[in-house]
């Protein structure tokens, strides 16, 4: 019981400290918002109704079967409530419609698209096919939806052997974001694809997306950087939380606690518990704030998300405790905490995607808590993964937490009992 009292006291004092709140909540939200604004995919209050009757223009210049697949899916009854598709022949005229605010996006399927995908009977080599999406730069949610639908169709085509399963699975994972209509893609795609005769093992579709009047951009930047910043600032606050035990030592409250009939193990567990509770609250508030202020989706698996968040906080607070237990004083703990937070942030994917890392850098990245946390979070939020698909990340984070706490608690006991 005293453990909980100490933990709650620590959490209360942390959230009452206005300076600390900047690092806990304000900084990650502000930086994420700036990144979102920079990438143009942030929505501050729903200036557009995102989830129904999105006006898009389809310019299908392909006279083959594949272009027809996209057209059939986009204009299917399943997506009728989500998309209002207008077909046009002139791409330039369609783009002008975006500039005039008449449409949110233009999907352009170029001439010869199918021919580049379907192998010629002569056995001639084929090139890579591209569909382009032009979007309204002032629009935020609609481009995400259109891009996701096109990705769903492309993913289904790319993996024909598993087309039905993957499409169904991915469609269900996106259903929370895009609405139930998209979930019906699972029914449509297999039917469409079964009529085709593609060499899907060797052919790949690619997707180009650009905004009218702007350069090509990554539509999921905001969805990536909010978790990135949340994990990054979580590391800072967890180190700060662990350091608070040294603050209490120098302020005299820790020695005073030790003169009360409270075992030192309970005091240390209470302090660690306070740090853990602070981290969980910090992350939860950031998730809720980004959800309701920026309309950011955190995926469909609440259980998976809760597991990754709790274990990330567990691992981060454990590492903070371990490193703090071996530092000489608050200043040293501060320097170590900041250094580790920065290095982990840089290596672990808080500032950029680690997907393309290879060799030593990839290995180093995998030594960081940020990497495993980001892998788990982006699987949940961007790829729409479920609970089972983030078990590896959860297990690694759990082991880090267990090992670091197992080493830190006895180290603190040795340090404070004189």
């Amino acid at each position: 019981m005293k453990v909980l009292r100490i933990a709650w006291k620590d959490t209360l004092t942390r959230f009452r400290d206005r300076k600390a709140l900047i690092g806990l909540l304000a900084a990650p939200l502000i930086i994420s918002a700036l990144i979102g604004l920079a990438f143009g995919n942030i929505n501050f209050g729903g200036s557009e109704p995102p989830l129904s009757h999105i006006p898009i223009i389809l310019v299908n210049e392909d006279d083959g079967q594949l272009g027809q697949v996209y057209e059939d899916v986009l204009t299917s009854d399943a997506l009728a409530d989500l998309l209002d598709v207008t077909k046009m022949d002139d791409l330039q005229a369609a783009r002008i419609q975006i500039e005039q605010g008449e449409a949110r996006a233009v999907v352009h399927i170029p001439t010869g698209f199918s021919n580049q995908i379907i192998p010629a009977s002569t056995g001639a080599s084929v090139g890579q096919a591209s569909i382009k999406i032009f979007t309204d730069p002032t629009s935020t949610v609609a481009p995400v939806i259109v891009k996701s639908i096109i990705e769903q169709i492309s993913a289904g085509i790319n993996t024909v052997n598993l087309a039905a399963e993957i499409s169904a699975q991915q469609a269900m994972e996106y259903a929370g974001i895009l609405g139930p209509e998209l979930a019906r893609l699972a029914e449509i795609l297999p039917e469409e694809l079964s009529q085709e005769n593609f060499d899907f093992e060797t052919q790949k579709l690619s997707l180009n997306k650009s905004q009218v009047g702007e350069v090509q951009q990554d539509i999921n930047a905001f969805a990536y950087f909010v978790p990135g910043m949340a994990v990054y600032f979580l590391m800072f606050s967890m180190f700060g939380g662990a350091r608070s035990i040294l603050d209490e030592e120098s302020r005299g409250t820790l020695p005073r606690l030790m003169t009360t009939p409270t075992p030192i193990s309970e005091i240390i567990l209470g302090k660690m518990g306070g740090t853990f509770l602070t981290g969980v609250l910090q992350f939860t508030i950031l998730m809720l704030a980004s959800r309701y202020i920026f309309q950011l989706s955190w995926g469909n698996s609440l259980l998976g998300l809760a597991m990754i968040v709790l274990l990330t906080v567990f691992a981060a607070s454990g590492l903070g405790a371990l490193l703090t237990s071996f530092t000489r004083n608050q200043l040293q703990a501060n320097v170590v905490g900041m250094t580790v937070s920065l290095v982990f942030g840089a290596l672990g994917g808080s500032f950029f995607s680690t997907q393309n890392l290879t060799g030593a850098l990839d290995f180093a990245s995998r030594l960081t808590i940020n990497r495993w946390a980001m892998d788990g979070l982006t699987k949940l939020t961007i790829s729409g993964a479920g609970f089972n698909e983030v078990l590896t990340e959860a297990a690694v984070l759990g082991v880090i937490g267990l090992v670091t706490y197992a080493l830190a608690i006895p180290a603190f006991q040795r340090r404070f009992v004189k």
Partner: protein
Amino acid sequence: MSETILKAQDLHKRFDKVHAVQGVSFDIRQGEIFSLLGPNGAGKTTTISMLSCLLTPTKGDAQIDGYSVRTQADKVKQVIGVVPQEISLYPDLSARENLAFWGRMYGMGGAQLKERIEAVLDIVGLSQRAKEKVETYSGGMKRRINIAVGLLHQPKILFMDEPTVGIDPQSRRRILDTVLELNKKGLTVLYTTHYMEEAAELSHRIGIIDHGKLIALGTQEELTRTVGEYDTLHISVDGSKTDPGALVEPIGKIKGVHRASLEDSSFIIQAEDANTVLAGIIAQLDKAGARVLNLRVDEPNLEAVFLHLTGRALRD
């Protein structure tokens, strides 16, 4: 005031090469205010830390209310209240929240805790400002809440480690009055200080500690008796019209004067009672044409005792 509540026996504490406390023994009787008086670094806080079960003695032991600080720390912690030298409070919490937290650390809760919080706030006179954050308090107010925490669980003995350091005279006076008031109600107090006046005013008995050793122990009267019972007169004169050295002998022969000497132009005269010899000395000086520039009378005090025992002033 007869039953012994605390008995320290040959307490030692060594930190690596520093032997901070070297064989300190004393006892405290129930209802007594016992002061440990000594300069900074003398070993007062280390001693009180061992008695608070915060530090384990390197050698020796102490019994508090019959419990050993070595082997029964949990029992000891229930009967002692500790007021540390630092303001050991949470500045972001209000006084009431601080008291509630610390009360719970002593296993209190519910109506009992609420009642005790109100009682101790009343004792330290901060009931009206209990909702305010401690960080908004003055130094003196923080000290008073620091004391209130130590009283929450109604300890049998209160350890107060230099509770008046760094505060204004008014707050200091208030704290001393609080200590006296608590003692009147039966609370036993172990008080450490380097202020001779505080020890003199508060204490039934005083232990003088220096370099980790208890060098004297007794009531104030008993201690001052060790340096003799003479008042000391310091008289500075204008020696331009006469030779002050020639006056040492006649002053020394005045009835009641124990000893007279001259340092520069100042006479240092020891007498059984300064009041009875002062008129004769002034007359002697006046007769010789030596004008008195300054005069001070020191009665026997703890400062003199410390000086006598260590050769150093207490505040060195």
